[in-house]
């Protein structure tokens, strides 16, 4: 490649990088800018009037911590239940022959295509009847309804590449089916399990629709809904909203940062 070409590529990448990264930069910058300075011209790209005021207000004057906690419970619950359910279902699909297996597998993927809103309203009626609105269980189940189909599909694919003879070796060594699954199959399908965990987290953490419709009690709001309520009720306190946005992205960032190695190897295994 010639020097000009590589320079052009570099310039193009730089433009893309700026487009992608600038909102994040602006978010972080605004979150540290005092309220009164935020809308005072001139609007500069670099500011030095650093302040933790927005964060202080967010953490102590609002229910942010409560929302954060709710989101965390829902996300952790969704991760744990998704991993268990998707693992068992995926394993069952790979290792057992049963009537209607193919339709089940395709139905699973098909149900993933429904928009959340289409399911949220029936769920509202159902959960009202079961008195499961404004509960963590209800929210976690709702989140599983959108993430589990793809997760089952994912684990199904992963278990197909784990040789059956590994399990048979475990069985003839005396291991029960469940022990063989845990000790022999799962380690081989670890990238799949991590993909399931991350996908479940992302869907739960970012979900607005289900939380908005099912969690009507302000005490049970998750972050996306809670943040939206900031916008409506207190006028728009942009500095604080930006501070909240920063804190919301921290868990996502940490998760991806620490698991990217496994995620990438997982992508290679499926691709």
């Amino acid at each position, binding site marked *: 490649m010639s020097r000009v070409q590589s320079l052009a590529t570099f310039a193009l990448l730089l433009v893309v990088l700026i487009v992608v990264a600038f909102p994040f930069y602006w978010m972080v910058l605004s979150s540290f800018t005092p309220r009164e300075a935020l809308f005072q011209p001139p609007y500069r790209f670099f500011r030095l009037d650093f302040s933790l005021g927005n964060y202080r207000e967010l953490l102590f004057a609002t229910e942010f911590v409560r929302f954060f906690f709710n989101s965390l419970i829902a996300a952790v619950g969704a991760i744990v239940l998704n991993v268990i359910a998707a693992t068992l279902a995926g394993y069952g699909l790979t290792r057992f022959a049963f009537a209607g297996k193919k339709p089940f597998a395709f139905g699973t993927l098909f149900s993933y295509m429904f928009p959340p809103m289409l399911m949220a309203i029936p769920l509202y009626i159902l959960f009202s009847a079961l008195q499961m609105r404004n509960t963590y269980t209800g929210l976690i189940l709702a989140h599983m309804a959108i993430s589990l189909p793809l997760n089952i599909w994912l684990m199904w694919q992963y278990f197909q590449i784990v*040789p059956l003879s590994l399990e*048979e*070796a475990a069985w*003839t060594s005396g291991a029960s089916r469940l022990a063989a699954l845990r000790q022999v199959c799962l*380690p081989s399908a670890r990238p799949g399990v991590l993909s399931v965990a991350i996908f479940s987290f992302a869907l739960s953490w970012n979900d607005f629709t289900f939380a908005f419709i099912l969690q009507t009690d302000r005490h049970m709001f998750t972050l996306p809904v809670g943040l939206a309520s900031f916008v409506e009720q207190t006028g728009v306190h942009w500095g604080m909203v930006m501070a909240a946005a920063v804190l919301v992205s921290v868990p996502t960032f940490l998760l991806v940062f620490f698991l990217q190695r496994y995620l990438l190897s997982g992508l290679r295994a499926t691709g």
Partner: protein
Amino acid sequence: MAFAVRLEHLDKRFGRGARAVHAVHDLSLDIGEREFFTFVGPSGCGKTTTLRMIAGLEAPTSGRIWFGDTDVTALPPQKRDIAMVFQDVALFPYMTVHDNIGYPLRIAGLPRTQVTEKVEKVAATLGLSDKLGQKPGQLSGGQQQRVAIGRAIIKEPKVLLMDEPLSALDARLRVEMRTEILRLHRELSATIVYVTHDQVEAMTMSTRVAVMDQGRTLQIDPPRVIFRRPADMTVATFIGTPAMNVIPVAVVTTPSGLAIELLGRRVPVAPRHHAALQGLERVEAGIRPQGLRLVPPGPDRITGRVFLREPLGLEDEVLVETADGTRVKAVTAAGDEFGEGAAVGLDLAPRDLCLFHPDSRITICNSLD
């Protein structure tokens, strides 16, 4: 004979209807205590299916399996006193060699120190002592297979099942591991049930061999008997290298009794076989390449021309084309006077000839004497 494993009218079908595969036909046999019993046959003959049924990995369609006086037909593999070595080794890639070998004991709930103690002992007999900390991926093929064998023998199973354990290894290692497995069989007091498509493995290692083809068991006998007195033409041609020559011959009546017309030469059949040949005009005659001797051509001999000569070292394999165009294989001393293209005579002893029924392929006699 006290038996370790008894198979009773074992039958296995895969699938249903028109596409069903009848993998094992009505198989009944006893495997003795401490026996080295081998199932041999071409791929798809049902030998691995049979082994998997003994292991409990496959359920028979009908029939029963006994371990001693326990009916294990309905028991899962975990509840049978077995261990198995797999064709593709099947080591757990995420565990060290130590953990792989010790896995059956850890499953059985033995304390860690005892597991380590036994693992070290097994590793020592298999020459793996310095590999215990490594992962299977870091080992050579032969070492991996040794680890798999270690994992199988550590819990001292009553029946050790081996499914083509050497087929993934190169020729040299295969011979080495053959000796190793024989040594283990002598040291352990286990019954070994072994599956292979390699007749040399079957013949050299086993106390008894079952030859299978297309789901049917053709013969169950010690290797020597299988070689000397094959039950039918399939067994005769499958066992032995190079393969037995089979030539269609006419049965003729001579003043001195019955004889066969073999490649232009008349070979008399001893009177004790006459009854079996009654009513047959044509039969198949078999002779092993080792039974044919190359001699100078002359009258009263089968004559032909050396078509191809393959040096094997001490001996050469020679393909001879006889006057009527039939090609037969013979084994002769390396570099004797009959080069390619040379005219040659073939000498044979009537006791080396065997006859098979042309339709049922069953052996009529294993010697014309």
